[in-house]
C-alpha cells in the first residue's frame, strides 16, 4: 500500500472514531438548562418561522437554523415530538467536521501533523463532551477553523472562491455567537505577528515554491499563489456581512437584529468584565485541562495536549522537526500565535464556563499535533523514536478512554470537569412520573401543571408534552392545580396546610436543589391503583 493510501485510511478511521465518541446515545445525558433554553428558542423559530435576536442572551441564530435538517429528517411536527438526539446530532457532526476540515491544511502541515491533530481532536474529552451539547460552541469552533482553512487555501491557490468561503465562515461565526469577535481578533493579530515574524526571520519557502508576495491591488495578472487581492478581500468582507445580516435579520424580516448584533457587545463586554456567577481565576481553564480531581473517584487530564502544544511552540519557533513534511512555516507560526493568543485571552477574561474553552483548545490541539510530530522528529535513534511514538499513542488512547468515561459513564457526575451547573438525572424521573399522572388524569396532557421556581430550567424541555404548564418565580394567588412543582427554597412560602390535599415527593434538580412535587391526592390514588395493576417489569441493569 502506498503511504498516501495508508494515510487516507488512517484518517478515515480517525474520523470514524471521532464519530463513535460523538454520535451514540445522545439522549443519555439529561438536558442542561442552556440546551433546554436553546430548544425552546428553536421551537419559536420552527413554529412561527420568525426569529428575533435578543442582544442580552441566547447568542446568534445559526444553531437554530442548523437544526432544521435533522428535525425534518426526524419527522417531528412539534417540540413534544422532538428528542435530545435530534437536537444534539447537529453539534456532534460539526464536532466531527472539525476533524475533516484538517484535510484542507494538508499541504501546509503534512500528513503526519494532520493525522496527529485529527487523532487528538477525535479523542479529546472536552471536544467530544461538548460535541454532544445542543449549544453553539462546536459550531463556532468549526466555522473558525473553516475560516483559517479557507484563508490558507486562498493564500495557496489564489482562487477567489476560497476567499468567498472564508467570508461565509466569518459571517457564520458572527451569527453563531458573540464571542466570535475573540477568535477573529486573535486571527487578525496572529496574521500581523506572523507577517512581522516571517519578515524579520527572513524565512524562505521551500525550494521550488514561490516566495510570499503580500497584497496586490488587483487580479489583472490572473490567479496567483501567495498573493492577496484587495478585491477578493472586499468581496469576502461583503459576503461575511451579508451572511451575518441574513441570519440576524431572520432573512430580512427584522432590521433591528443586525444592529443589535453589534450593540450587544456593550452587554458582553460588561459580562466579560466579571463580578458574576461564572467568574473564575485566570488559571481556571488550564487547571481544568491539566488535572482535575475534585473528590474521590476519577481524575481527568488533557495535560498531554497542553504538553504537546508547548512542544508545538518549539516547532513554530525553530522550524525543526518538519523537514520531512511539506509545510509552510508561516502557517505553523500562525497556528502557534493564534492558539497562544486565544488561550491568553480566554484565561484573562473573568467570565468562564468550561464549554468556552473549546475555542482555544481546538487551535491548541493543532499546535499539539505539530508538537507530537516535532518530538518524534527530534528524537534521532530509531528505537527512541519508536518509544516516543508508543508513549504518544498510549497518551492518545488514555484521552480516548477518558472521553468514553466522560460521555458514557460520568456524564452528570460532579467530578467530571465538563459537567457544569448540570441537572441531576432526577429530572428525567420527574418527567416520567408526570407522564404517568397524565395517563390517569381525565385531561391527559392538558392536565394543569404549575411550576414555582426562580430557575426552573430545564423543566420546560421535560414538560414540553404538557399543554397547560405555568411558571412563576413566587407562589401565585391561585395555587391549586393537579400538579404543583415548587423549588425547595420556596416550599416554605406556600400557604399553611396546602400540603394536606396533596401527595408530596421530591426530586433533585441540581445538587442540593430539590423540586417538591405536589400531586392532588385523588389523582395520586388513581395513579397508585393503576401502578398496582402493573406487574413489576424487568429491572434494567446498567448498560
Amino acid at each position, binding site marked *: 500500500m502506498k503511504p498516501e493510501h495508508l494515510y487516507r485510511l488512517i484518517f478515515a478511521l480517525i474520523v470514524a472514531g471521532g464519530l463513535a465518541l460523538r454520535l451514540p446515545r445522545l439522549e443519555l445525558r439529561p438536558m442542561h438548562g442552556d440546551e433546554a433554553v436553546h430548544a425552546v428558542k428553536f421551537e419559536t423559530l420552527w413554529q412561527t418561522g420568525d426569529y428575533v435576536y435578543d442582544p442580552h442572551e441566547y447568542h446568534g441564530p445559526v444553531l437554530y437554523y442548523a437544526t432544521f435538517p435533522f428535525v425534518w429528517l426526524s419527522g417531528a411536527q412539534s417540540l413534544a415530538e422532538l428528542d435530545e438526539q435530534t437536537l444534539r446530532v447537529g453539534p456532534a457532526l460539526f464536532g466531527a467536521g472539525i476533524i475533516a476540515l484538517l484535510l484542507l491544511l494538508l499541504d501546509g502541515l503534512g500528513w503526519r501533523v494532520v493525522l496527529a491533530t485529527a487523532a487528538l481532536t477525535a479523542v479529546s474529552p472536552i471536544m467530544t463532551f461538548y460535541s454532544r451539547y445542543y449549544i453553539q460552541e462546536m459550531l463556532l469552533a468549526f466555522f473558525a477553523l473553516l475560516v483559517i482553512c479557507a484563508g490558507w487555501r486562498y493564500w495557496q491557490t489564489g482562487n477567489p472562491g476560497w476567499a468567498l468561503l472564508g467570508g461565509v465562515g466569518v459571517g457564520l461565526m458572527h451569527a453563531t455567537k458573540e464571542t466570535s469577535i475573540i477568535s477573529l481578533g486573535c486571527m487578525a493579530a496572529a496574521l500581523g505577528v506572523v507577517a512581522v515574524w516571517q519578515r524579520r526571520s527572513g524565512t524562505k519557502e521551500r525550494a521550488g515554491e514561490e516566495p510570499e508576495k503580500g497584497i496586490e491591488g488587483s487580479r489583472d495578472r490572473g490567479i496567483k499563489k501567495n498573493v492577496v487581492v484587495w478585491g477578493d478581500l472586499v468581496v469576502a468582507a461583503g459576503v461575511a456581512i451579508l451572511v451575518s445580516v441574513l441570519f440576524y435579520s431572520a432573512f430580512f424580516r427584522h432590521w433591528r437584529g443586525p444592529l443589535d448584533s453589534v450593540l450587544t457587545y456593550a452587554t458582553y463586554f460588561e459580562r466579560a468584565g466579571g463580578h458574576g456567577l461564572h467568574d473564575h481565576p485566570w488559571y481556571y481553564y488550564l487547571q481544568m485541562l491539566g488535572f482535575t480531581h475534585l473528590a474521590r473517584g476519577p481524575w481527568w487530564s488533557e495535560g498531554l495536549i497542553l504538553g504537546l502544544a508547548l512542544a508545538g511552540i518549539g516547532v513554530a519557533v525553530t522550524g525543526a522537526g518538519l523537514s520531512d513534511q511539506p509545510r509552510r512555516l508561516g502557517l505553523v507560526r500562525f497556528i502557534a500565535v493564534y492558539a497562544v493568543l486565544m488561550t491568553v485571552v480566554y484565561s484573562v477574561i473573568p467570565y468562564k464556563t468550561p464549554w468556552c474553552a473549546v475555542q482555544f483548545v481546538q487551535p491548541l490541539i493543532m499546535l499539539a499535533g505539530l508538537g507530537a510530530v516535532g518530538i518524534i522528529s527530534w528524537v534521532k535513534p530509531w528505537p527512541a523514536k519508536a518509544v516516543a511514538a508508543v508513549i504518544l499513542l498510549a497518551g492518545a488512547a488514555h484521552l480516548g478512554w477518558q472521553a468514553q468515561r466522560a460521555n458514557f459513564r460520568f456524564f452528570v*457526575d460532579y467530578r467530571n470537569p465538563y459537567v457544569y451547573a448540570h441537572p441531576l*438525572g432526577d429530572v428525567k424521573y420527574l418527567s416520567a412520573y408526570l407522564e404517568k399522572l397524565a395517563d390517569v388524569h381525565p385531561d391527559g396532557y392538558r392536565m394543569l401543571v404549575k411550576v414555582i421556581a426562580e430557575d426552573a430550567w430545564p423543566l420546560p424541555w421535560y414538560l414540553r408534552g404538557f399543554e397547560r404548564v405555568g411558571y412563576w418565580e413566587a407562589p401565585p394567588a391561585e395555587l391549586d392545580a393537579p400538579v404543583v412543582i415548587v423549588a425547595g427554597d420556596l416550599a416554605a412560602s*406556600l400557604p399553611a396546610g396546602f*400540603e394536606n390535599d396533596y401527595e408530596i415527593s*421530591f426530586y*433533585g434538580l441540581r*445538587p442540593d436543589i430539590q423540586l417538591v412535587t405536589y400531586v392532588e391526592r385523588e389523582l395520586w390514588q388513581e395513579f397508585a391503583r393503576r401502578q398496582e395493576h402493573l406487574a413489576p417489569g424487568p429491572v434494567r441493569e*446498567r448498560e
Partner: protein
Amino acid sequence: MSATLIVAAVLSLADDGAPGAAGAQGEVAKESKAAGDLVPLNIKLPKPAFRGTPKHVPPGTNLEEPRKGPRPPFMAAKGAVNVAAGKPVTSSDSEPIIGSIKLVTDGDNSADEGSYVELGPGLQWVQIDLKEKAEIWAILVWHYHANARVYHDVVVQIADDPDFITNVRTLFNNDHDNSSGLGLGRDKEYWETYEGKLIEGKAAVARYVRLYSKGSTADDQNHYIEVEVYARPAK
C-alpha cells in the same frame, strides 16, 4: 458527648421499615412460631459523621420525619446475628467507580474514606449470597452517611435463587412513582445517618438479599458502606 454526637443523635431517624418498629415486632413474633424468645439486636453503630440535615424540607413529603433520640432497640429472635459478614457480594455494576464490592460486607460501617463502594448512575443493585437459607430478622443498610442525603428508590428484596426468579419477596420499597419498575413502593424515603436503615425481615427465609437504589439527593451515583443481615439458620 461531643456536639457532633449530640446533633447526630437528635437527627437520627424515626421508624425503620414500613410499620412502626415496636408494633411490627409484635406482629412478627406472632407470625413466626420459630422465633422463640425475642432479644434486642446487638448492633454496633459507627461514629456519627455529619451535622444537620439538608435545608428546605417541606412538611408532608414522602420523607420520614427526623426522630429525636436514638433508635429503640430492635427485638429479634435469640441467635440472630449478622450472617452477611464476609459473604460474597455481586452487583449490577461490574466496574465500581470507587472501592470494591467486597466493602459491602467487610464489617466496616463507618463513614471513613475507603469504607464505601460507589456504583454508577441510575438504578443499581448489590446482592449478598448468605450461602445458605436463613431466617432473616433485620437488614441494616448504610448507603453513605458522611453527609446528609436521601437515596431514591430503595428496594430490598429476598429470594431463593441468585437471579431473583423464585420466591421473590419485597421487604422494603420506597419507589413512590414506580420508576424503577419493581412495583409501587409505599415505604417512605429517609435520611442517611450513622444508625443506618433498619428493615424488618419478618423472619422470612431466603438465601439471597438484593438491595436496589437509584441515586440520591447529592448525585446520581449509588453508594454502599455496609449491609448487615441479622438472621439465624433456617430450620
